[in-house]
């Protein structure tokens, strides 16, 4: 039986000091494992993003209050099951969490012109950028 996988990441409520457990839900990871091998492999990139986040956005949904988007750029990702390649500079990898910090989407986005760690149109898409790395 698959179980939820917990991954330490910055607390979106206290990103400078706190850590929380983000959750890779078992039903998501098992579905990806069984039916979407490339998405399953790119959970590695998603975990990298959560552990090395560069930007955190809040307010990612119109109808559902809350939710978070964590972004960063992994060194590599799978474009096919047997094709692991460097992650392109034109993209940023985004991991979406619901208000209960459960991961529901992981994908690449085109980067914004004004910030290479932000998804395109980030100012219109999210209610705010709540944290950015200083390194």
């Amino acid at each position, binding site marked *: 039986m*698959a*179980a939820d*996988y917990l991954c330490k990441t910055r607390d979106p409520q206290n990103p400078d000091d706190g850590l929380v457990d983000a959750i*890779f*839900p078992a*039903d*998501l*990871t*098992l*579905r990806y*494992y*069984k*039916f*979407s*091998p*490339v*998405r*399953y*492999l*790119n*959970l*590695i990139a998603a*975990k990298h993003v959560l552990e090395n986040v560069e930007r955190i956005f809040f307010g990612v*949904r*119109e*109808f*559902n209050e809350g939710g978070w988007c964590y972004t960063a750029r992994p060194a*590599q*990702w*799978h*474009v*096919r*099951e047997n094709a*692991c390649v460097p992650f392109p500079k034109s*993209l940023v990898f*985004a991991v*979406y969490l*619901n208000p*209960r910090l*459960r*991961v*529901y*989407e992981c*994908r*690449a*986005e*085109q980067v914004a012109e004004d910030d290479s760690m932000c*998804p395109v*149109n980030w100012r219109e*898409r999210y209610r705010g950028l709540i944290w950015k790395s200083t390194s």
Partner: protein
Amino acid sequence: MEKHFLSSIMESHGEASFRAEPWYNADGDCIMYQNADEAVVADRADELLTIYRSALDDRPIGFQIKGVAAIIRKFGLDGLMIRSTTELQEVRHVSITAILLAAYEDGPRTISRRQAYATAIEYPLAGGIATSELQLS
């Protein structure tokens, strides 16, 4: 590439095999569909619809439609539902095409939106999503 952090959990679940079928993601309240096992790059049409483009060649390979519960609340389940009957029971499915059309009605009539929704609707989505899978409160 490093060993997958979930490999010890998943190894008892048998072989993986790509399946192109829509599914309802309860944690995201969204329907996701992909017809190719390739990395995706998001191409956001509006607040509700994102087209998935292949990272290999930019062709559309699926979509995500968000806010499913809100769409159903707004338009009513009856107007979005397909009923079918098996030997044992009536099975109720929500039509994904109907959800896409409802989402389209909810926004501005722009060419880019129309093209994105047309792309999504052209996928084979006849089965719909069983109402029992949806979390409607």
